[in-house]
């Protein structure tokens, strides 16, 4: 059993590391499909990538119930998250503000997460999904707010049908699921407004 003293550290500089991480995530959401880098130095527990850990340290606190998938909840990550963020870890993804997905092959159906209500579409779960690569793999052509015309995202993403599953965002809008893809220190955001350009990938 790991003691608190043996846990990996949090941000090296709580204030400025959180700020630079936030700007990377904000830029990622404002420009869907572009790869942003998280430069802040932060420890990460086993099972969590550096980018995932930095986003957790930057956004999570006692106000954000989080849900962890099997790959993350079994490791020391849960203890690390509890110690550094104080976020309550819950069993029901439908109640979660954020969900950390370490094993995206077994990503639960999206309707198991919170989709928000028509009155409060912001009360939805943001998925933070660890992927194989954000630099090589399948090319996805994306369009939507934040994108000048269309943009190409080259990524190796599990589940392979992620974008097909995210098509519910078009039907449900303004309800929906926002996704942040993480590969090491690189992140790409796919907010609920982003659509696949059809017939081209």
């Amino acid at each position, binding site marked *: 059993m790991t003691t608190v003293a043996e846990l990996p550290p949090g941000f090296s500089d709580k204030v400025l590391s959180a*700020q630079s991480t936030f700007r990377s995530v904000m830029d990622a959401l404002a420009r869907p499909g572009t790869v942003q880098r998280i430069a802040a130095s932060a420890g990460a527990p086993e099972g969590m990538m550096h980018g995932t850990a930095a986003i957790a340290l*930057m956004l999570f606190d006692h106000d954000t119930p989080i849900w962890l998938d099997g790959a993350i909840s079994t490791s020391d990550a849960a203890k690390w998250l509890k110690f550094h963020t104080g976020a309550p870890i819950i069993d029901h993804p439908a109640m979660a503000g954020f969900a950390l997905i370490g094993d995206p092959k077994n990503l639960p159906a999206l309707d198991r997460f919170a989709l928000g209500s028509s009155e*409060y579409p*912001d009360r939805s779960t943001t998925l933070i999904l660890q992927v194989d690569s954000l630099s090589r793999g399948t090319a996805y052509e994306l369009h939507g707010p934040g994108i000048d015309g269309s943009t190409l995202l080259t990524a190796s993403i599990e589940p392979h049908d992620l974008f097909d599953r995210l098509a519910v965002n078009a039907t449900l809008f*303004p309800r929906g699921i*926002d996704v942040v893809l993480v590969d090491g220190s690189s992140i790409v955001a796919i907010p609920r407004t982003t659509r696949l350009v059809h017939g081209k990938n």
Partner: protein
Amino acid sequence: MNAPSYNFAYLDEQTKRMIRRAILKAIAIPGYQVPFASREMPMPYGWGTGGVQVTAAILGPDDILKVIDQGSDDTTNAISIRKFFGKTAGVATTTLTMEATVIQTRHRIPEAPLHEGQVLVYQVPIPEPLRFLEPRETETRRMHALAEYGLMHVKLYEDIARFGHIATSYAYPVKVNARYVMDPSPTPKFDNPKMDNCAALQLFGAGREKRIYAIPPYTTVVSLDFEDHPFKPYRFDAPCALCGAENSYLDEIVTDDKGGRMFVCSDTDYCEQRQAEGHRGRESAAPHKERAHV
């Protein structure tokens, strides 16, 4: 050593996390007003407490901050907010639109086109465009949920019935990404076209009303209108008296008690840039400078 000091950019980290989460949701749902737990700020409501909280949550040590109030860099509100962040965050400040990475604005959009990587932060007094038509929050929230915006068109139609044209001249309602009707804050409607397909990220903060909303870059923003009464931006029919600009938004300045007046650019940085480039208007220098060479 025990001198009191503030956290970087004034706000504590828990507050910043809360505001940052609201900003991220706001970007994901363009035009939707995200409720947030607005804090008391060391300035009264109406002085930009919402904008200041948004700026404090995004600002980093490498940012260059510009603050404008009605287009002007040198009014009390603009100067005090610029000094506030100079003091609490130690950030560089500027009056140049091109140079700034974060621009906090009260009721104007700069004339110079904004570029990618810039963030425009609006101070918003009343974020709900339907509030004067329907005072109940429960009702306006449902109207947004159902995209039921007929009432807003009725309001614009009543303008036409009464005045012959749409007389709304500021806080002119827009539809963002073909879904949410949004209040662009009390900017003159002259500025509305600049919001459409803008390269910069636009964030809106309303402190008293506790709402944050956003327009991501390259998002369609359409001013509401009718086929037979299309949206028309308004500006005084005159060139700027100082720089001669024919396409900028103008302030009317009364110069004496005999009906004398001049029109000058509301955007002081734009006007100064043009004068530095050699553009001249009818009154080539500000009145107090002319007196020097009598």
